Protein backbone atom coordinates (compact mmCIF):
# COMPACT_ATOMS: atom_id res chain seq x y z
CA UNK A 1 0.00 0.00 0.00
CA UNK A 2 1.44 3.37 -1.04
CA UNK A 3 -1.31 6.02 -1.07
CA UNK A 4 1.07 8.99 -1.00
CA UNK A 5 4.46 9.45 -2.58
CA UNK A 6 6.17 12.38 -0.89
CA UNK A 7 8.53 14.10 -3.34
CA UNK A 8 9.96 17.11 -1.52
CA UNK A 9 7.02 19.38 -0.73
CA UNK A 10 4.75 17.50 -3.15
CA UNK A 11 2.38 14.81 -1.83
CA UNK A 12 1.61 12.78 -4.95
CA UNK A 13 -1.57 10.69 -4.67
CA UNK A 14 -0.41 7.36 -6.11
CA UNK A 15 -3.94 5.95 -6.75
CA UNK A 16 -4.75 9.08 -8.77
CA UNK A 17 -1.50 8.66 -10.67
CA UNK A 18 -2.46 5.05 -11.50
CA UNK A 19 -5.86 6.14 -12.79
CA UNK A 20 -4.24 8.88 -14.86
CA UNK A 21 -1.89 6.30 -16.36
CA UNK A 22 -4.98 4.15 -17.02
CA UNK A 23 -6.61 7.00 -18.96
CA UNK A 24 -3.45 7.43 -21.03
CA UNK A 25 -3.49 3.68 -21.84
CA UNK A 26 -7.20 3.84 -22.78
CA UNK A 27 -6.54 6.71 -25.21
CA UNK A 28 -3.42 5.04 -26.67
CA UNK A 29 -5.06 1.64 -27.15
CA UNK A 30 -8.24 3.16 -28.58
CA UNK A 31 -6.15 5.20 -31.03
CA UNK A 32 -4.48 2.00 -32.10
CA UNK A 33 -7.69 -0.03 -32.37
CA UNK A 34 -9.81 2.60 -34.16
CA UNK A 35 -8.56 1.79 -37.65
CA UNK A 36 -9.49 -1.89 -37.19
CA UNK A 37 -13.13 -0.72 -36.94
CA UNK A 38 -12.85 1.98 -39.66
CA UNK A 39 -13.22 4.75 -37.08
CA UNK A 40 -11.29 8.03 -36.91
CA UNK A 41 -8.87 7.86 -33.94
CA UNK A 42 -9.13 11.61 -33.30
CA UNK A 43 -12.91 11.43 -32.89
CA UNK A 44 -12.63 8.56 -30.41
CA UNK A 45 -9.90 10.34 -28.43
CA UNK A 46 -11.97 13.54 -28.32
CA UNK A 47 -14.99 11.55 -27.17
CA UNK A 48 -12.98 10.05 -24.27
CA UNK A 49 -11.55 13.43 -23.28
CA UNK A 50 -14.99 15.07 -23.56
CA UNK A 51 -16.46 12.43 -21.24
CA UNK A 52 -13.60 12.85 -18.75
CA UNK A 53 -13.65 16.64 -18.63
CA UNK A 54 -17.43 16.91 -18.41
CA UNK A 55 -17.47 14.05 -15.87
CA UNK A 56 -14.94 15.68 -13.53
CA UNK A 57 -16.40 19.19 -13.80
CA UNK A 58 -19.97 18.00 -13.33
CA UNK A 59 -18.96 15.80 -10.37
CA UNK A 60 -17.78 18.97 -8.61
CA UNK A 61 -20.89 20.92 -9.69
CA UNK A 62 -23.26 18.18 -8.46
CA UNK A 63 -21.38 18.16 -5.14
CA UNK A 64 -21.63 21.97 -4.88
CA UNK A 65 -25.36 21.77 -5.63
CA UNK A 66 -25.77 19.19 -2.83
CA UNK A 67 -24.17 21.68 -0.39
CA UNK A 68 -25.50 24.78 -2.12
CA UNK A 69 -25.66 27.01 0.98
CA UNK A 70 -22.03 26.35 1.92
CA UNK A 71 -20.72 26.92 -1.61
CA UNK A 72 -22.84 30.07 -1.90
CA UNK A 73 -20.84 31.45 1.07
CA UNK A 74 -17.54 30.30 -0.54
CA UNK A 75 -18.14 30.27 -4.32
CA UNK A 76 -14.42 30.05 -5.20
CA UNK A 77 -14.23 26.68 -3.41
CA UNK A 78 -15.90 25.19 -6.50
CA UNK A 79 -12.44 25.41 -8.10
CA UNK A 80 -10.67 23.59 -5.22
CA UNK A 81 -8.38 20.77 -6.39
CA UNK A 82 -9.48 18.51 -3.54
CA UNK A 83 -10.68 15.22 -5.08
CA UNK A 84 -12.81 14.30 -2.06
CA UNK A 85 -15.43 16.95 -2.83
CA UNK A 86 -16.86 15.27 -5.90
CA UNK A 87 -20.16 13.47 -6.51
CA UNK A 88 -18.67 10.47 -8.39
CA UNK A 89 -21.84 8.67 -9.51
CA UNK A 90 -23.56 11.79 -10.81
CA UNK A 91 -20.33 12.92 -12.48
CA UNK A 92 -19.81 9.55 -14.16
CA UNK A 93 -23.36 9.51 -15.54
CA UNK A 94 -23.08 13.10 -16.81
CA UNK A 95 -19.68 12.38 -18.39
CA UNK A 96 -21.03 9.24 -20.03
CA UNK A 97 -24.02 11.17 -21.39
CA UNK A 98 -21.71 13.90 -22.76
CA UNK A 99 -19.46 11.32 -24.46
CA UNK A 100 -22.47 9.52 -25.91
CA UNK A 101 -23.90 12.79 -27.23
CA UNK A 102 -20.54 13.74 -28.78
CA UNK A 103 -20.27 10.32 -30.43
CA UNK A 104 -23.83 10.59 -31.73
CA UNK A 105 -23.17 14.06 -33.18
CA UNK A 106 -20.03 12.78 -34.89
CA UNK A 107 -21.92 9.85 -36.40
CA UNK A 108 -20.04 7.11 -34.54
CA UNK A 109 -21.68 3.70 -34.85
CA UNK A 110 -22.44 2.28 -31.40
CA UNK A 111 -21.15 -1.31 -31.54
CA UNK A 112 -17.90 -0.74 -33.49
CA UNK A 113 -17.16 2.20 -31.15
CA UNK A 114 -17.70 0.06 -28.05
CA UNK A 115 -15.57 -2.73 -29.55
CA UNK A 116 -12.76 -0.26 -30.31
CA UNK A 117 -12.91 1.00 -26.70
CA UNK A 118 -12.90 -2.50 -25.19
CA UNK A 119 -9.13 -3.25 -24.98
CA UNK A 120 -8.69 0.19 -23.39
CA UNK A 121 -11.48 -0.47 -20.89
CA UNK A 122 -9.94 -3.84 -20.01
CA UNK A 123 -6.57 -2.13 -19.45
CA UNK A 124 -8.26 0.58 -17.34
CA UNK A 125 -9.72 -2.12 -15.07
CA UNK A 126 -6.14 -3.22 -14.46
CA UNK A 127 -5.21 0.37 -13.56
CA UNK A 128 -8.17 0.48 -11.13
CA UNK A 129 -6.84 -2.71 -9.50
CA UNK A 130 -3.40 -1.13 -9.06
CA UNK A 131 -5.03 2.05 -7.69
CA UNK A 132 -6.87 -0.07 -5.10
CA UNK A 133 -3.60 -1.80 -4.27
CA UNK A 134 -1.96 1.59 -3.66
CA UNK A 135 -4.81 3.07 -1.62
CA UNK A 136 -5.92 -0.03 0.31
CA UNK A 137 -9.49 0.47 -0.94
CA UNK A 138 -11.69 -2.47 -1.98
CA UNK A 139 -10.11 -4.37 0.91
CA UNK A 140 -10.67 -8.01 1.83
CA UNK A 141 -12.48 -9.74 4.66
CA UNK A 142 -10.56 -10.95 7.70
CA UNK A 143 -9.05 -14.38 7.15
CA UNK A 144 -6.43 -16.84 8.38
CA UNK A 145 -5.29 -18.05 4.93
CA UNK A 146 -1.47 -18.22 4.62
CA UNK A 147 -1.41 -15.50 1.93
CA UNK A 148 -3.39 -13.01 4.06
CA UNK A 149 -2.01 -9.47 4.28
CA UNK A 150 -1.97 -7.11 7.25
CA UNK A 151 -4.24 -4.24 6.32
CA UNK A 152 -6.48 -1.86 8.28
CA UNK A 153 -5.85 -3.49 11.63
CA UNK A 154 -6.41 -7.14 10.62
CA UNK A 155 -5.15 -10.05 8.52
CA UNK A 156 -7.20 -9.83 5.32
CA UNK A 157 -7.71 -11.44 1.93
CA UNK A 158 -5.52 -9.53 -0.57
CA UNK A 159 -8.57 -8.75 -2.73
CA UNK A 160 -6.71 -5.97 -4.53
CA UNK A 161 -4.21 -8.56 -5.76
CA UNK A 162 -7.04 -10.90 -6.78
CA UNK A 163 -8.49 -7.93 -8.68
CA UNK A 164 -5.21 -7.19 -10.49
CA UNK A 165 -4.73 -10.86 -11.45
CA UNK A 166 -8.32 -11.17 -12.73
CA UNK A 167 -8.11 -7.87 -14.65
CA UNK A 168 -4.77 -8.93 -16.19
CA UNK A 169 -6.21 -12.25 -17.28
CA UNK A 170 -9.31 -10.56 -18.75
CA UNK A 171 -7.12 -8.06 -20.61
CA UNK A 172 -5.09 -10.92 -22.10
CA UNK A 173 -8.30 -12.74 -23.20
CA UNK A 174 -9.74 -9.59 -24.78
CA UNK A 175 -6.43 -8.82 -26.50
CA UNK A 176 -6.41 -12.32 -28.02
CA UNK A 177 -10.11 -12.25 -28.94
CA UNK A 178 -10.08 -8.88 -30.65
CA UNK A 179 -8.43 -10.12 -33.86
CA UNK A 180 -10.92 -12.95 -34.37
CA UNK A 181 -14.14 -11.15 -33.45
CA UNK A 182 -16.21 -9.17 -35.97
CA UNK A 183 -17.14 -5.56 -35.16
CA UNK A 184 -20.59 -6.33 -33.85
CA UNK A 185 -20.39 -5.45 -30.16
CA UNK A 186 -19.48 -9.05 -29.32
CA UNK A 187 -16.05 -8.12 -27.96
CA UNK A 188 -17.50 -5.39 -25.73
CA UNK A 189 -20.21 -7.68 -24.38
CA UNK A 190 -17.63 -10.42 -23.75
CA UNK A 191 -15.59 -7.93 -21.68
CA UNK A 192 -18.70 -6.86 -19.74
CA UNK A 193 -19.50 -10.53 -19.02
CA UNK A 194 -15.92 -11.29 -17.91
CA UNK A 195 -15.72 -8.17 -15.73
CA UNK A 196 -19.07 -9.01 -14.10
CA UNK A 197 -17.95 -12.61 -13.54
CA UNK A 198 -14.73 -11.39 -11.92
CA UNK A 199 -16.63 -9.04 -9.57
CA UNK A 200 -19.13 -11.80 -8.73
CA UNK A 201 -16.25 -14.09 -7.74
CA UNK A 202 -14.00 -11.62 -5.89
CA UNK A 203 -16.78 -9.84 -4.00
CA UNK A 204 -17.15 -13.00 -1.88
CA UNK A 205 -13.77 -12.19 -0.29
CA UNK A 206 -14.33 -8.47 0.23
CA UNK A 207 -14.55 -6.92 3.67
CA UNK A 208 -16.43 -3.79 2.61
CA UNK A 209 -19.47 -5.22 0.84
CA UNK A 210 -22.78 -3.43 1.00
CA UNK A 211 -25.29 -5.97 2.28
CA UNK A 212 -28.80 -6.32 0.88
CA UNK A 213 -31.68 -8.51 2.11
CA UNK A 214 -29.93 -9.13 5.48
CA UNK A 215 -27.00 -11.21 4.22
CA UNK A 216 -26.49 -10.93 0.44
CA UNK A 217 -23.71 -8.85 -1.08
CA UNK A 218 -25.42 -6.29 -3.32
CA UNK A 219 -22.48 -6.10 -5.77
CA UNK A 220 -22.83 -9.83 -6.42
CA UNK A 221 -26.55 -9.46 -7.18
CA UNK A 222 -25.79 -6.61 -9.59
CA UNK A 223 -22.90 -8.52 -11.19
CA UNK A 224 -25.03 -11.63 -11.79
CA UNK A 225 -27.71 -9.51 -13.45
CA UNK A 226 -25.14 -7.75 -15.68
CA UNK A 227 -23.50 -11.09 -16.49
CA UNK A 228 -26.83 -12.63 -17.57
CA UNK A 229 -27.71 -9.59 -19.72
CA UNK A 230 -24.24 -9.61 -21.36
CA UNK A 231 -24.45 -13.34 -22.14
CA UNK A 232 -27.90 -12.93 -23.72
CA UNK A 233 -26.55 -9.92 -25.63
CA UNK A 234 -23.61 -11.99 -26.92
CA UNK A 235 -26.08 -14.54 -28.30
CA UNK A 236 -28.16 -11.85 -30.00
CA UNK A 237 -25.21 -10.13 -31.69
CA UNK A 238 -23.63 -13.46 -32.74
CA UNK A 239 -26.95 -14.54 -34.30
CA UNK A 240 -27.38 -11.17 -36.04
CA UNK A 241 -23.82 -11.45 -37.37
CA UNK A 242 -24.47 -14.94 -38.68
CA UNK A 243 -27.67 -13.76 -40.43
CA UNK A 244 -25.78 -10.80 -41.96
CA UNK A 245 -23.05 -13.07 -43.33
CA UNK A 246 -25.64 -15.46 -44.83
CA UNK A 247 -27.47 -12.60 -46.57
Amino acid at each position, binding site marked *: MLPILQVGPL*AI*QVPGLMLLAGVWVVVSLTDREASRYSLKPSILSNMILMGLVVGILSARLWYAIRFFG*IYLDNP*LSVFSLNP*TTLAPMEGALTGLAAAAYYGYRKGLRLWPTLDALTPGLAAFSLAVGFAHLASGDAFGAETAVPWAIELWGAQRHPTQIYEVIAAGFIFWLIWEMRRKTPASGFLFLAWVALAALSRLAIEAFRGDS*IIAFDSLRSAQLGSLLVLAIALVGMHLV*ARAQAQDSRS
Partner: protein
Amino acid sequence: MSKLSSLAKDPIRWGAIVAGVIVLGVIWIGISQVPASATTSGAIPSPREGFAAPDFTLETLEGETITLSDLRGKAVVVNLWASWCPPCRAEMPALQAAYEADHARGLEILAVNMAYQDREQDAQRFVQDFGLTFTVPLDRDGTVARQYLLRALPSTFFVGPDGVIRKVVIGGPMSEATIRSTVSEMLEEVP
Protein backbone atom coordinates in the same frame (compact mmCIF):
# COMPACT_ATOMS: atom_id res chain seq x y z
CA MET B 1 -15.48 -15.72 -36.59
CA SER B 2 -14.11 -16.93 -33.25
CA LYS B 3 -15.06 -20.22 -31.67
CA LEU B 4 -16.80 -18.31 -28.90
CA SER B 5 -19.03 -16.34 -31.27
CA SER B 6 -19.83 -19.55 -33.18
CA LEU B 7 -20.88 -21.11 -29.89
CA ALA B 8 -22.86 -18.02 -28.88
CA LYS B 9 -25.07 -18.11 -31.97
CA ASP B 10 -26.31 -21.65 -31.12
CA PRO B 11 -29.39 -21.01 -28.96
CA ILE B 12 -29.44 -24.48 -27.37
CA ARG B 13 -25.79 -24.73 -26.35
CA TRP B 14 -25.49 -21.03 -25.41
CA GLY B 15 -28.79 -21.19 -23.51
CA ALA B 16 -27.42 -24.12 -21.50
CA ILE B 17 -24.23 -22.13 -20.74
CA VAL B 18 -26.23 -19.08 -19.64
CA ALA B 19 -28.49 -21.21 -17.43
CA GLY B 20 -25.45 -22.98 -15.94
CA VAL B 21 -23.68 -19.70 -15.23
CA ILE B 22 -26.78 -18.26 -13.54
CA VAL B 23 -27.28 -21.38 -11.38
CA LEU B 24 -23.58 -21.41 -10.36
CA GLY B 25 -23.76 -17.66 -9.72
CA VAL B 26 -26.78 -18.06 -7.43
CA ILE B 27 -25.03 -20.90 -5.56
CA TRP B 28 -21.86 -18.75 -5.20
CA ILE B 29 -23.90 -15.82 -3.87
CA GLY B 30 -25.54 -18.21 -1.39
CA ILE B 31 -22.19 -19.60 -0.24
CA SER B 32 -20.66 -16.16 0.20
CA GLN B 33 -23.51 -14.54 2.10
CA VAL B 34 -22.59 -12.94 5.43
CA PRO B 35 -24.50 -11.15 8.19
CA ALA B 36 -24.51 -7.38 7.71
CA SER B 37 -22.34 -6.95 10.83
CA ALA B 38 -19.51 -9.05 9.29
CA THR B 39 -18.52 -6.44 6.73
CA THR B 40 -18.83 -3.33 8.84
CA SER B 41 -15.44 -2.57 10.29
CA GLY B 42 -16.49 0.23 12.62
CA ALA B 43 -15.20 -1.69 15.65
CA ILE B 44 -11.60 -2.01 14.41
CA PRO B 45 -9.39 1.06 14.98
CA SER B 46 -7.70 2.06 11.73
CA PRO B 47 -7.19 5.39 9.95
CA ARG B 48 -9.60 4.92 7.07
CA GLU B 49 -13.23 5.54 6.25
CA GLY B 50 -15.64 3.16 7.94
CA PHE B 51 -13.22 2.20 10.73
CA ALA B 52 -13.09 3.38 14.35
CA ALA B 53 -10.80 6.41 14.74
CA PRO B 54 -7.72 5.25 16.72
CA ASP B 55 -8.06 6.67 20.21
CA PHE B 56 -5.43 8.89 21.82
CA THR B 57 -4.85 10.99 24.90
CA LEU B 58 -2.57 14.00 24.53
CA GLU B 59 -1.58 17.11 26.41
CA THR B 60 -2.78 20.32 24.77
CA LEU B 61 -0.88 23.54 24.19
CA GLU B 62 -2.67 24.95 27.27
CA GLY B 63 -1.42 22.08 29.44
CA GLU B 64 -4.74 20.26 29.68
CA THR B 65 -5.36 16.63 28.69
CA ILE B 66 -7.71 15.61 25.89
CA THR B 67 -8.92 12.14 24.89
CA LEU B 68 -10.54 11.62 21.49
CA SER B 69 -13.07 9.05 22.73
CA ASP B 70 -14.36 11.56 25.31
CA LEU B 71 -15.79 13.51 22.36
CA ARG B 72 -18.22 10.73 21.34
CA GLY B 73 -21.56 12.25 20.40
CA LYS B 74 -19.89 15.16 18.61
CA ALA B 75 -18.61 15.63 15.08
CA VAL B 76 -14.82 15.74 15.37
CA VAL B 77 -12.20 16.89 12.88
CA VAL B 78 -8.72 15.52 13.66
CA ASN B 79 -6.18 17.59 11.73
CA LEU B 80 -2.49 16.65 11.83
CA TRP B 81 -0.22 19.62 11.17
CA ALA B 82 3.15 21.29 11.73
CA SER B 83 4.04 24.98 11.80
CA TRP B 84 6.65 24.63 9.01
CA CYS B 85 4.15 23.02 6.59
CA PRO B 86 2.87 25.58 3.99
CA PRO B 87 -0.44 23.81 3.14
CA CYS B 88 -1.12 23.49 6.91
CA ARG B 89 -0.75 27.27 7.21
CA ALA B 90 -2.98 27.75 4.16
CA GLU B 91 -5.88 25.69 5.51
CA MET B 92 -5.90 26.84 9.16
CA PRO B 93 -8.11 29.92 8.49
CA ALA B 94 -10.66 27.60 6.83
CA LEU B 95 -10.62 25.26 9.85
CA GLN B 96 -11.08 28.22 12.20
CA ALA B 97 -13.98 29.56 10.08
CA ALA B 98 -15.67 26.14 10.07
CA TYR B 99 -15.19 25.88 13.85
CA GLU B 100 -16.75 29.29 14.41
CA ALA B 101 -19.67 28.42 12.13
CA ASP B 102 -20.47 24.97 13.55
CA HIS B 103 -19.01 24.64 17.07
CA ALA B 104 -22.36 25.51 18.63
CA ARG B 105 -23.99 22.68 16.66
CA GLY B 106 -21.54 20.07 18.00
CA LEU B 107 -18.32 20.43 15.99
CA GLU B 108 -14.98 19.89 17.75
CA ILE B 109 -11.61 20.33 16.07
CA LEU B 110 -8.47 18.66 17.40
CA ALA B 111 -5.57 20.21 15.49
CA VAL B 112 -2.84 17.78 16.57
CA ASN B 113 0.55 19.43 16.23
CA MET B 114 3.30 17.01 15.20
CA ALA B 115 5.43 18.25 18.09
CA TYR B 116 7.97 15.46 17.64
CA GLN B 117 8.99 17.13 14.37
CA ASP B 118 8.11 20.72 15.26
CA ARG B 119 9.05 23.24 17.97
CA GLU B 120 6.42 24.02 20.59
CA GLN B 121 7.21 27.73 20.59
CA ASP B 122 6.69 27.78 16.80
CA ALA B 123 3.36 25.97 17.26
CA GLN B 124 2.39 28.49 19.96
CA ARG B 125 3.23 31.43 17.66
CA PHE B 126 1.33 29.78 14.81
CA VAL B 127 -1.81 29.46 16.99
CA GLN B 128 -1.54 33.11 18.06
CA ASP B 129 -0.89 34.35 14.49
CA PHE B 130 -4.02 32.64 13.18
CA GLY B 131 -6.14 33.32 16.28
CA LEU B 132 -7.08 29.66 16.61
CA THR B 133 -9.69 28.95 19.29
CA PHE B 134 -10.01 25.17 18.93
CA THR B 135 -8.01 22.56 20.86
CA VAL B 136 -4.37 22.01 19.85
CA PRO B 137 -3.00 18.73 21.31
CA LEU B 138 0.73 17.99 21.04
CA ASP B 139 1.98 14.69 19.63
CA ARG B 140 5.38 14.78 21.35
CA ASP B 141 6.49 11.20 20.68
CA GLY B 142 4.83 10.54 17.31
CA THR B 143 2.24 8.12 18.72
CA VAL B 144 -0.67 9.70 16.86
CA ALA B 145 1.41 9.99 13.67
CA ARG B 146 2.01 6.21 13.84
CA GLN B 147 -1.61 5.38 14.77
CA TYR B 148 -2.88 7.43 11.83
CA LEU B 149 -0.18 6.16 9.42
CA LEU B 150 0.90 9.74 8.73
CA ARG B 151 2.36 10.05 5.24
CA ALA B 152 1.80 13.70 4.37
CA LEU B 153 1.01 16.93 6.17
CA PRO B 154 -1.63 18.07 6.63
CA SER B 155 -3.82 14.98 7.02
CA THR B 156 -7.40 15.34 8.18
CA PHE B 157 -9.79 12.73 9.56
CA PHE B 158 -13.49 13.48 9.91
CA VAL B 159 -14.86 11.42 12.80
CA GLY B 160 -18.61 10.96 13.24
CA PRO B 161 -20.47 11.10 16.58
CA ASP B 162 -20.15 7.28 16.81
CA GLY B 163 -16.35 7.48 16.64
CA VAL B 164 -16.20 6.08 13.10
CA ILE B 165 -14.12 7.87 10.44
CA ARG B 166 -16.32 9.32 7.69
CA LYS B 167 -13.74 10.90 5.42
CA VAL B 168 -9.96 11.16 5.12
CA VAL B 169 -8.26 14.05 3.33
CA ILE B 170 -4.53 13.59 2.85
CA GLY B 171 -2.70 16.74 1.82
CA GLY B 172 -4.12 20.20 1.56
CA PRO B 173 -5.06 22.92 1.75
CA MET B 174 -8.75 22.16 2.19
CA SER B 175 -11.21 24.91 1.46
CA GLU B 176 -13.79 26.03 4.03
CA ALA B 177 -16.51 24.54 1.80
CA THR B 178 -14.74 21.16 1.79
CA ILE B 179 -14.62 21.13 5.58
CA ARG B 180 -18.13 22.43 6.16
CA SER B 181 -19.81 20.20 3.57
CA THR B 182 -18.27 17.11 5.20
CA VAL B 183 -19.00 18.33 8.70
CA SER B 184 -22.61 19.19 7.85
CA GLU B 185 -23.36 15.52 7.09
CA MET B 186 -21.84 14.45 10.42
CA LEU B 187 -23.68 17.17 12.35
CA GLU B 188 -26.99 15.72 11.19
CA GLU B 189 -26.16 12.68 13.35
CA VAL B 190 -25.26 14.66 16.47
CA PRO B 191 -27.93 13.90 19.10
